[in-house]
């Protein structure tokens, strides 16, 4: 057994090369995130101050002001989206798991996949036709619904996937005790999958919170304070978009600040979802 035959050397070289390539790819994948953080924070952090969170936008020419209305607006919009999409999405996921092979399930699965791939601007146009044109006004409701439509496929597929991971023995145990199918799902299967579903919902929320296109002609924008659902409403993303497109230096700074808040909230949602999963998992395992 000689330690270094030619074949041996070659094998080691190849192995090393593959390792280096993989490591380099990982670094490469991290570069965009790092650069986004760098650019946004460099411009955004200096522009962030208390006023940004508490004050309303100032008219053109007046410096200062903030995006309080836009932040509340975004919260309202994703609130509407969640209220609309979460129950429907979870119910849909349950149906897909319970009636795996039904024709309706195949159709629903297919349309969820397609919907997931539809560009968000198209969803915006759809919501415009469906919820703006008939009432002849931009509304928070229309914007929330557009975001809800975007969340729907994400929630459906996560729910289905996670319900599929619940051990069948839970279900059997419940049915053997005389539970109806619906009861078994509601009391055992769904709770067992809940940690994962919660994470899925949070991820979906984070994703739609950062959407601009579906809001441009649904909730539009509002320079004033408004929490009414039947009126146009401001949102962080649309505000950032508007300000970034403006010719004013001060508005550009505000746009960077808005972008910083958006990134921070994505980060927050990610951490929250991790935290929620951990906690729920621990609860399930019983070490809590």
């Amino acid at each position, binding site marked *: 057994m000689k330690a270094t035959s030619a074949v041996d050397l070659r094998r080691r070289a190849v192995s090393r090369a593959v390792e280096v390539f993989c490591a380099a790819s990982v670094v490469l994948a991290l570069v965009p995130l790092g650069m986004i953080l760098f650019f946004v924070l460099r411009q955004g952090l200096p522009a962030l101050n208390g006023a940004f969170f508490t004050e309303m936008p100032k008219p053109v020419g007046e410096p200062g002001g903030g995006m309080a209305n836009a932040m509340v607006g975004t919260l309202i919009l994703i609130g509407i989206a969640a209220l609309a999409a979460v129950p429907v999405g979870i119910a849909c996921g349950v149906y897909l798991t319970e009636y795996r092979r039904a024709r309706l399930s195949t159709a629903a699965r297919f349309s969820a996949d397609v919907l997931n791939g539809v560009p968000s601007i198209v969803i915006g146009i759809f919501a415009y036709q469906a919820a703006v044109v008939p009432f002849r006004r931009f509304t928070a409701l229309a914007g929330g619904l557009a975001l809800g439509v975007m969340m729907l496929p994400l929630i459906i597929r996560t729910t289905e996937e996670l319900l599929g991971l619940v051990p069948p023995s839970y279900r059997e145990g419940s049915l053997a005790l005389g539970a109806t199918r619906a009861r078994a799902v509601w009391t055992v299967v769904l709770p067992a999958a809940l940690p994962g579903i919660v994470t899925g919902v949070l991820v979906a929320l984070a994703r739609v919170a950062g959407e601009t296109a579906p809001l441009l002609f649904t909730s539009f924008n509002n320079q004033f304070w408004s929490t009414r659902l039947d009126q146009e409403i401001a949102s962080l993303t649309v505000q950032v978009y508007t300000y970034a497109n403006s010719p004013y230096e001060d508005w550009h700074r505000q746009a960077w600040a808005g972008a910083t808040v958006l990134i921070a909230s994505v980060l927050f949602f990610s951490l929250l979802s991790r935290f929620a999963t951990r906690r729920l998992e621990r609860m*399930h395992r019983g070490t809590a």
Partner: protein
Amino acid sequence: MTRELQAPADPGIRIRTELRPAEPAAASAAIGIELRDVNLSYGDNHVLHDISMDVDEKRVTALIGPSGCGKSTLLRCLNRMNDLIESARTTGSVKIKGQDIYGPGTDVIAVRRRVGMVFQKSNPFPKSIFDNVVYGLRIGGVRDRTALEAAAEKSLSLAALWDEVKDRLQASALSLSGGQQQRLCIARAIAVEPEILLMDEPCSALDPIATLKIEELIYSLKERYTIVIVTHNLQQAARVSDKTAFFWLGRLVEYGVTSDMFTNPREKLTEDYITGRFG
């Protein structure tokens, strides 16, 4: 050959047998379950052939036989769990107290409340110990907290688990040991006060001590319940059961009083099987 079988390796088991000598032939028992010409196929695979037998009430009946002979399938016929398998087709009749559970208009939910089941792999729900035990009662509509607590204590005591968990009823059931989890599942099954208890290899995942506890438990439960147990452990069958049914390739080969069957099997197949001379 039967001597070998009954000379247990584990001294604890011998003590047990001595303490509780096998009861004389369970002659006086009423019929708990009456199977007539039960046939079952999964698609084209005909798994159970013309099974007819009477299971004694308030006795322990063991189902034994080589792997794949249909023991679990038969057990699952008794609470209609095979309904969950799309390809399963059952014919024949299974009567519990005279009522055919395969008859038209049978309420399957009601059947499953009368016939409890304990699975091979313990399957406590990822909920608290308390919520597990009272699960069946809750879905049956019991809401009264005191009633639930009383029932939980009663069934956990019957399952010989109360002392171990009484101080942590709110802890997750998944924090219990394997043997405790299995006893919890038994407690959960008896909490709804079924008439019949089905157990599919309840000890197969347990160590000898936990196994012994479950066997003790089965022994004590038969005062109240008709118990049907599937087991691969012939010594266990000999220890806990009053009657034993031996299955082979989906047919009932021999069915009789356990002590008779282990000392004096009528069929050659049975003898080969219980002496381990199976090929």
